[in-house]
């Protein structure tokens, strides 16, 4: 009998406490599943229920960490590490940056608008729970086998790498093209348009403005201090009290 099968049998014979005492793998799997699954569900509920968007983001990070721990209990440590590195460590950092920079406000408390849909939600949830209970008790758990241990000694990383570069090479390359598309799109959207938007008319107009300024003595080309003083004098003469002359005298 493999180790997994032995554990499963000892679990069904000795009960939960007995197998826990014996240090069985199965009992600890259940404990970890309940722990991390509960953590994930709690963080997910918190994410939805929080009014402050940053607390929601932090709760989502908690969900990802809990999911990573669940992956570890399923003998997929590579996926867990990649989940932390990519999701919790990169994507959520981006989300947190956006929330901080946009200074997203707390949502105000709102009255519940869709009150009439609450009985529908409760009814559907009851149906779901009833179906799950039926499947687990009447049909039984006889079809649930314990997970087989990984076949090779090399470990999950090597097998993922091999599969990614041989059997699944085409989806891999297409996914990288997809990410490249997103990257190019983001750079294009975020570019400052003033640099790109200078048309020939704008260039000519600015030259005309410069010549007009020089003609009226406001712009002294090459001497910013003198230009500043001339501009300040101009504005004082126009009766604008907002711009005091020390600004002009400072020059550069």
């Amino acid at each position, binding site marked *: 009998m493999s180790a997994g099968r032995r554990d499963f049998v000892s679990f069904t014979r000795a009960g939960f406490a007995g197998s826990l005492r014996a*240090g069985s793998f199965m009992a600890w799997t259940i404990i970890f599943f309940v722990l991390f699954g509960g953590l994930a569900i709690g963080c997910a509920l918190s994410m939805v229920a929080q009014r*402050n968007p940053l607390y929601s983001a932090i709760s989502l990070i908690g969900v990802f960490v809990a999911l990573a721990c669940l992956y570890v209990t399923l003998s997929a440590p590579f996926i867990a590490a990649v989940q932390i590195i990519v999701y919790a460590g990169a994507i959520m*950092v981006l989300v*947190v940056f956006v929330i901080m920079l946009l200074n997203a406000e707390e949502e105000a408390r709102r009255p519940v608008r869709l009150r009439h849909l609450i009985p529908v939600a409760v009814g559907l949830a009851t149906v779901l729970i009833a179906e799950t209970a039926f499947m687990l008790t009447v049909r039984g758990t006889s079809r649930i086998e314990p997970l087989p241990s990984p076949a090779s000694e090399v470990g999950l990383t090597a097998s993922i790498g091999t599969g990614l570069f041989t059997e699944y090479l085409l989806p891999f390359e297409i996914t990288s093209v997809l990410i490249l598309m997103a990257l190019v799109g983001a750079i294009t959207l975020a570019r400052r348009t003033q640099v790109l938007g200078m048309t020939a008319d704008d260039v000519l107009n600015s030259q005309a403005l410069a010549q007009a300024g020089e003609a009226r003595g406001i712009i002294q080309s090459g001497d910013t201090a003198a230009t500043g003083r001339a501009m300040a004098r101009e504005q004082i003469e126009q009766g604008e009290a907002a711009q005091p002359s020390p600004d002009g005298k400072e020059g550069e």
Partner: protein
Amino acid sequence: MDWNNSYIQVGLKLVGINVAFVVVLMIVAYTVLAERRILALIQGRLGPNRVGYGGILQPFADLLKFIFKEEITPDKATKFVYFLAPIIAITAALMPIVVYPFGPTVNLPFIGPVALVIARFDIALLYVLGITSVGVYGIALAGWASNSKYSLMGGLRASAQMISYELSLGLSLVGVVLMSGTLDLYSIVEQQGGWFGMRWNIIRPDGLPQLIGFIVYLISAIAETNRVPFDLPEAETELVAGFHTEYSALKFALFFMAEYVNMFTVSMLATTLFLGGWQGPFVEQVPILGVFYFLGKVIFFLFLYIWLRGTLPRFRFDQLMNFGWKFLLPVAILNVILTATLMFFMLRQ
């Protein structure tokens, strides 16, 4: 005692974690003292040398000071996040300590052969990189939650810098992984044995010396830990104290400790991957010598950090980001391509 019982094994690991925790905190405390003394000597003055013989009890004096200081919390700070940030910082700094092998397999009297690493698993390197990515949150959230413009600027700059240099950090390690064929740190160190204990990855005599990777890693690591010359986020002359401006007493001590523990962690990663970890002359005959070699190399890196702090001026932030994205990242990618190509040709022969 049945040493194969899983509970005993877990208990042993917990004891190991506690010992490592205490050892790391002691090393960090004395790194702070060493930094102050060495920096002082570089700058032509003496550091703290009054408390105890030559200042040896200074860390304890500092600790007492931190404990007894008043905890000032800014009025409009977001309380929960304000308290969470230093916790995330110190946890993310301490978590990677458990995967570093600090010695070969020694024969302990009752227990038998024990590999001197607390947690040995397949993806140790990815684990370290993942925890480093999560460490960014401590700084970003601290900067934001303090409700102060200096903190926010410092926090955003620090997090932008950290996520930029994380890429070069990861890529510089890919060369080593390609040569070793595994992500398990203990195996990587084991493969650096031979050649009289000097078959380190940086000078690999019968393979590909990972010198470029090492230099890229060193620069990225200094940027990751916000140390000079990349310490603009905490530049005292510009941002008061950056993201930890509004933190006082023990919370500040946690950030301070987190920075030095981070330094320690990246030094350990550098010695493990590039300098051969515990490998050195005569390690097969006297296994316990490996621990001293490991500590010696780590202390060399810590000294290097302090030396750089006393010598170099700091980068401006745009220079920093330009350097990270436009120079360091292409060099790291080139290193990966070069290593892969040369390995391919060497394997074919």
